[in-house]
């Protein structure tokens, strides 16, 4: 035991020197790259996947990793997606209890990188065959020209619909515009006796409305806040109309869970959702026949082009990790083509690597469906403050949906709050 400890300490000291070299540009000199079999240590991995539906596949993959590298032990911890940001940041800053590798929402990469929490991965063993990553997924890992994450899964939002209910209501194909969406919802209510949709009031799910009008939260290049532009107001007006005319009554405190529960039991006809939710959908009574779940691009706004945000998860190595080499190897393993294909087969999520879309993976109906939707994905604004922006936006979006504020007044208020959160040279677009 003692000898093992000394060995581990020596190795981590070696690893530190090695990374010191690595940061000066000769990453190939690290132990991880030269002699991966000799790397040892215990690393902690924070997984944010759904603990019930998705985590078993990741745990199985970690077993495979430990078998391949017997000297590395991985401590697996499942951390709730909703609280991981606050948890990781406070641990990362104090250095106490921080994981070595953390599964990170793609929207947080620029924040972690700008704050110095994420290790730069260019030239390390973690990054291999980068040309293989889907361009959208790869784009999320970049901050100021460097790589701070490795794509594990990618996703975007799509329109999920219940084919049997559509048939019952006499709807031939999924709606392609929000107007058609509302009309179909009314038809579902009238002929199939179910609610058309369940609008998720979370501000992330507002993005398809914004993108469909060509609007966005801000324009980093022009240093402008655009959240209250006429196009954005039009988007919020559409969202409000969907909430009023097409959606089941929204329970704001339980919206996500209720949306899922109602959709998978056939009580609503369509939802705007991501591929991560399909594993849960298939567990419900409405989709025991997997073919009943239809997947289509999100409806379009007045631009005629439906677009949704690029989402997904990248693996981030904590810059303060005591076992960087082991962390690199772990990250490399978890994001290899074989691993991503394995996860895709088990969980129905979309791999970040293009080579992981093997024929067996594409047999998964949810993956085949979402792969077709993926071209409609579009990157979110890459600002370190983007996580902060969603708080005031979410509050105003809730007020708009509840009818306490008009779309214009709500978004004007959001813009004023954005002004306080963004660097002082940002201005509100006229």
């Amino acid at each position, binding site marked *: 035991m003692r000898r093992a400890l000394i060995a581990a300490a020596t190795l981590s000291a070696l690893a530190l020197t090695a*990374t*010191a070299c690595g*940061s000066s540009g000769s990453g190939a000199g690290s132990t991880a790259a030269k002699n991966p079999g000799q790397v040892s240590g215990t690393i902690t991995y924070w997984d944010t996947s759904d603990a019930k539906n998705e985590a078993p596949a990741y745990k199985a993959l970690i077993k495979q990793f430990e078998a391949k590298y017997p000297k590395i032990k991985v401590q697996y911890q499942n951390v709730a997606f*909703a609280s991981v940001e*606050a948890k990781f*940041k406070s641990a*990362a*800053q104090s*250095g106490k209890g921080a994981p070595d590798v953390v599964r990170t929402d793609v929207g947080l990469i620029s*924040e972690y990188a*700008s*704050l*110095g*929490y994420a*290790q730069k991965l260019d030239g390390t063993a973690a990054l291999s065959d980068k040309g293989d990553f889907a361009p959208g997924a790869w784009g999320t890992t970049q901050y100021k020209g460097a790589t701070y994450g490795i794509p594990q899964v990618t996703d975007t939002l799509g329109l999920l619909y219940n084919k049997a209910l559509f048939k019952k209501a006499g709807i031939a194909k999924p709606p392609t515009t929000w107007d058609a969406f509302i009309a179909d919802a009314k038809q579902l209510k009238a002929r199939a006796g179910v609610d058309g949709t369940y609008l998720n*009031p*979370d501000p992330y799910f507002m993005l398809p409305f914004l993108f469909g009008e060509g609007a966005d939260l801000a324009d980093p290049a022009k240093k402008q806040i655009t959240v209250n532009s006429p196009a954005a107001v039009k988007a919020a007006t559409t969202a409000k109309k969907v909430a009023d005319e097409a959606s*089941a*009554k*929204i*329970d*704001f*405190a*339980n*919206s996500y869970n*209720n949306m899922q*529960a*109602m959709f998978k039991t056939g009580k609503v006809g369509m939802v705007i959702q991501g591929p991560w939710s399909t594993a849960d959908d298939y567990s419900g009574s409405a989709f025991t026949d997997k073919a009943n779940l239809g997947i289509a691009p999100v409806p379009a706004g007045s631009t005629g082009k439906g677009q949704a945000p690029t989402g997904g998860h990248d693996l981030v190595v*904590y*810059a*303060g*990790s005591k076992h*960087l080499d082991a962390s690199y190897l772990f990250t490399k393993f978890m994001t290899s083509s074989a691993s991503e294909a394995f996860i895709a087969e088990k969980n129905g999520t979309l791999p970040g690597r293009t080579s992981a879309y093997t024929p067996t993976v594409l047999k998964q109906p949810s993956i085949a469906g979402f792969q077709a939707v993926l071209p409609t994905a579009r990157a979110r604004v890459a600002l*370190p*403050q*983007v*996580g*902060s*922006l*969603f*708080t*005031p936006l*979410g*509050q105003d979006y*809730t*007020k708009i949906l*509840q009818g*306490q504020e008009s779309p214009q007044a709500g978004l004007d208020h959001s813009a004023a709050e954005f002004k306080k*959160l963004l660097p002082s040279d940002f201005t509100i677009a006229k």
Partner: protein
Amino acid sequence: MQRLRRSWERHWYAWAMVGPVVVVIAVLVLYPLLYGLFLSFTDANEANVAKNIGANHIPATFHLVGLHNYWQVLSGADGHFYPRLVWTIVWTVGCVAFTYGIGVGLAVLLNRPIRGKIFYRLALILPWAVPNFIGVYAWRLMLNGQYGVFNRIIGLVGIPGQAWLDGETAQKVAVIIVNVWLGVPFMVVALLGGLQSIPAELHEAGEMDGASPWQRFRSITLPSLRPVSSTVILLGTIWTFNMFNVIYLLLGQNTTGSTDILVTYGYNLVFNGVANYSMGSTYGIVVLLILLGFSIFYGRRQLKEEQL
């Protein structure tokens, strides 16, 4: 100096006994408090504080800004302080008034020979025995607009389901109800203790003089309860003012922000996105000062009343 030395010579063991506690309190309470106070005079946020993480060494670049943060808060320039303060006061007064009122009522009911007293007392303490976040989650499930038990029940008699947590007023009523549910057991237990210490002779004498039950309650029970009441009301006020769990957990993340009390608002400043340490600390210090002021004022008034 002389006195100090004599005190040390005579009571050195007492100092030695207190020493560790003083150290622990200094480390656990005083240091964070002073650090928070320091941060409130700066413009520190997560992006400009010093960090030494692995190969990344980022020096601190924040500055002292004097009373700027306090001015932002107290002048209303940040646009959030006064709305949050008003709601915090409404919330505190509402919760304490209801918990105390219901607590007195139940305590009086239980403070007499009835069958199954143990059962009633246990049932009333139950909300206290459950960790409060679990209680709050249970309420969230019961109030669920699609699957909650309340809608199930009213559905049985043909009333359509309600969205219990929809809209500002509904949410505010809901959080107060849940907090009252959580707070009543403490009041009942404390007040029962107070009731039992009232000499039975007082009530007997009152009865002899022909006082009605209501008169006896007003002239004997309530005044005799005053020492206990003043303590539980003070404690209840401080706890409710800072009751984070109910507000934060019952309503989830998709709120309008108008149900935030000062502490949950301060929390959001620090734990959403790039943390704003300076404003978060400023809110913390302001909350502390408000409660300190209230406690002193309340204590003084109480003392005066007792002297009368």
